[in-house]
């Protein structure tokens, strides 16, 4: 059977003929793609192509009308979001989704939710077990914060931080889940040149040091070419091309889609 567990703990993600409809609009039309274990797979396409919708299906936010998503032997399309999280699928959002008044530390600790146990009773009674658990996981959270470059911001309320830093916090929160598959929805959107380069470095470092699979939505073709092992191109909900980045870049259908769309690559670069 495909999608078996890999020795290093990550697995193949297989998306087969996934279709999503919204009141008359087909946001995804029988889309298929495969993410090899430990690889970086980019999903590109003009605005409204269905990239975020695809991520929402993978993470259980949207229900697919048809098709299947298999990850490590599990069928994801019928699982709720927290069940999918429990399988080690983590994601960031195109629009930052962090509770603004919580500190960076608390936001990252939320990423440890699935790995920790303390419930109402043990937290309310301040049980030593709950405190020990929190201390243990805080140590790992600090490690990840340092890795992502936000170690000095742990006590700051997230809402007060600059946009670029908030993007990093979201990435760190996803890493705190110790994921096997990481979905990044436009991780450098809205950042300036320097911040983009740093974020790209970070994604490379994640790939190399953790060996997890990464699925990436990105408009910046420079970053896609540099990071991706494979690319899938969507346009109006359909997969119009796919393969190694150099090939996809030369594909006439891809060039047509980008030139024909109101938004071109430059606008997002």
């Amino acid at each position, binding site marked *: 059977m495909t999608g078996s567990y890999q020795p290093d703990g990550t697995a193949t993600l297989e998306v087969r003929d996934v279709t999503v409809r919204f009141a008359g609009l087909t946001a995804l039309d029988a889309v298929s793609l495969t993410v090899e274990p430990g690889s970086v797979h980019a999903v590109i396409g003009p605005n409204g192509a269905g990239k975020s919708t695809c991520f929402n299906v993978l*993470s*259980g*936010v949207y229900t697919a009308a048809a098709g299947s998503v298999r990850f490590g032997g599990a069928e994801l399309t019928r699982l*709720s*979001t*927290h069940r*999918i*999280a*429990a399988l080690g699928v*983590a*994601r960031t*959002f195109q629009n930052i*989704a*962090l*509770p*603004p*008044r*919580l500190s960076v530390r*608390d*936001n990252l*600790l*939320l*990423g440890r*939710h*699935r790995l*920790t*146990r*303390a*419930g*109402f009773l*043990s*937290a*309310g*009674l*301040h049980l030593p077990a*709950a405190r020990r658990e*929190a201390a243990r996981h805080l140590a790992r959270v600090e490690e990840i914060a340092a890795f992502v470059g936000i170690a000095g911001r742990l006590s700051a309320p997230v809402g007060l931080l600059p946009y670029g830093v908030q993007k990093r916090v979201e990435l760190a*929160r996803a890493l705190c*889940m110790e994921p096997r598959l990481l979905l990044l929805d436009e991780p450098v959107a809205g950042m300036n040149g320097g911040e983009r380069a740093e974020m790209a470095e970070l994604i490379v470092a994640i790939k190399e040091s953790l060996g997890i699979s990464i699925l990436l939505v990105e408009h910046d073709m420079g970053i896609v070419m540099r990071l991706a092992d494979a690319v899938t191109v969507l346009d109006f909900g359909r997969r119009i091309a796919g393969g190694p980045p150099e090939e996809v870049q030369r594909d006439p259908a891809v060039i047509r889609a980008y030139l024909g769309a109101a938004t071109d690559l430059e606008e997002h670069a």
Partner: protein
Amino acid sequence: MYKLLTWLGGIAVALFVPFYLEGFWLQAGLFTMSAAIGAIGINLLTGATGQLSLGHAFFLAVGAYAYVYFAAEPEGHLAGLNLPTPLAAVLAVIVAGIAGGLFSPIAGRLKGAYLGIATLALIFLGQHLLFNAEPLTGGYNGRAVPPMELFGLVFADTPELVILNVPFGVLERLWFLGLAVLLVAAWFAKGVLRGRPGRAMNTIRDHEIAAGVMGVPVGRYRAGVFVLSSMYAGAAGVMLALVFQRTVPEYFGMLLSLDYLAMIVIGGLGSVAGAVVGAVFVSFLPQLLTRYSDALPLVAEPGSGGVSPAEAARILYGAAVVAVVLFLPGGLLGLATRIRLAVTRRVQLPAELTPSPDSRS
């Protein structure tokens, strides 16, 4: 550090209150303690998790009436189990939690304001039961509340008790019980809010989808917080019954639920301290106005026509809610924090004004 000192100072003052203040103030303080316990509960639900509830008064009623039922001796057509009163109090809180649990299939599925509308039904159900389930509730007349009896100490005026020349009646005795229950309730809620559940609750409030994606079972948490907040309401109901010594059905209506929402909005959403500050404001104000109604312009004696103290208080804190929503997003607690920050900044200012030699270049 600052917080710890405030807490310790507050507790120290509270411990001495019964030795100096007369009954009126003690009763006002006890109502406030009960309100604070209930407000902490609804702040866990509404403030921290973003789930609106208009049914808080229902769970207070469940707590109050369940205590009476468990503790009272059966008498005439009134039912009772005659259990030891501390056990009755604990069972009453558990029953309030069970009532919340029965509602949790709804509380887990509906979010925010939708839950608020659904909980409205609880108020009507509650009022209907309180007036009509007479063997349990005593109907229109309510029921007498059996005094608590803990380790041989009866929380009533008899037998007489004098400590340091101060006669310790029911209010003086309850004062310490109320304080202890409030402290435990606050301590528990603080642990919940600071720990793993609190982070999940805050994230559900701010970004429900993100919470689910991070592995938080959103529906289960919403249901769980609803049960917990019902138990706080139940404890507040038991306290209230003990202080009032009689249960009054119409008290547990819509207005009481709105009072609780006013408390957490005025005090500060999502925190224990905010709930306590709001409870002081909302439940102390009417009693203050009642006490000094003859000295206040526009406020009439109760029953003499004109604006009654209770109405005046409602108008006042209605205005306070509007003012807080418009000008003080963090409530009174947020205001206090801002003032504290401003003061500490001013204290540190001189240091900044004297530049060090090397910064002068």
